[in-house]
């Protein structure tokens, strides 16, 4: 999400609803992508995105601008997703939405390299979706969206050390599945 949205953010902070609507239009796909990665399904992702913007709209006046707007929005999304997953915990369904359209913003020009990269990304996406939601959340927020441990812990309602433990566990599971060492292959394929 580019942070060339400063003018819109300033206007929205001053109560300009049309500026906030422009921010929504500019950032929805990115917010939806994060919500989908955190929840693993389209229905929950849509609910999370709606809740995220509603909360952002109500609290945009408190946004100080000391963080990027995108980071602020990621934190709200992470918090809303944690709440949504908590509500869904009893009757969670883990269907994979393989038909979710993907748009690559930085396509490779070398077709074979592109095919290899696409293959790896697909495997990685599958592996991420196979993680338990609580592990998936920390690895997505830390290793894809680069949020600090402290922010992740705050938005997920856990301690910083618990966030780190989950992150290391998630990385290990992903590594064993995608890049197994000799002796780990059988375990990886059994997952």
């Amino acid at each position, binding site marked *: 999400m580019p942070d060339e949205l400063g003018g819109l953010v300033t206007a929205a902070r001053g109560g300009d609803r049309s500026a906030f609507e422009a921010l929504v239009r500019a950032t929805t796909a990115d917010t939806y992508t994060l919500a989908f990665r955190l929840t693993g399904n*389209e229905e929950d992702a849509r609910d999370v995105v*709606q809740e995220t913007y509603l909360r952002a709209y109500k609290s945009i006046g408190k946004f100080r601008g000391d963080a990027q707007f995108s980071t602020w929005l990621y934190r709200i999304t992470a918090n809303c997703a944690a709440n949504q997953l908590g509500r869904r915990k009893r009757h969670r369904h883990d269907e994979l939405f393989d038909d979710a359209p993907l748009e690559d913003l930085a396509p490779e020009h070398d077709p074979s390299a592109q095919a290899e990269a696409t293959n790896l990304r697909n495997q990685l996406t599958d592996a991420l979706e196979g993680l338990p939601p609580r592990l998936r959340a920390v690895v997505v927020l830390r290793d894809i969206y680069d949020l600090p441990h402290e922010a992740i812990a705050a938005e997920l309602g856990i301690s910083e050390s618990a966030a780190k433990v989950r992150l290391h566990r998630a990385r290990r599971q992903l590594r064993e599945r995608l890049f197994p060492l000799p002796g780990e292959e059988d375990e990886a394929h059994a997952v």
Partner: protein
Amino acid sequence: MRCEELADHLAAAEGGHLVEPTAQAHVQSCLRCQAELAQYRKLLRALRTLRTEVLTPAPGLVSDILVSIEAAGERSAVRSALRGRKLAYIGGVAVAGMAGGAAALVLVSRRRMRLAG
């Protein structure tokens, strides 16, 4: 340090780099841990590439969001209007009370002046 003890250090290595000197020393002399650390670096690089991908939501999401924001805006406007009316009502009652009190004081003081005269 044994390889099993290093597992957490390898998974924790930010950017694939170890901080702990004892862990670094072990990896320098252990081919298996070097390979494992290299695989973590590949994993972190691959995860980073996902940042450039954007999923396209099904049509209608933006309009749903805008509708809910508009509804929230209207609710907030109604709340502030009601709050304004409530304040005006309380203010009105307070002013009327004060005026009544002042009138009573005037009447009492006139009556006392008549009795004294």
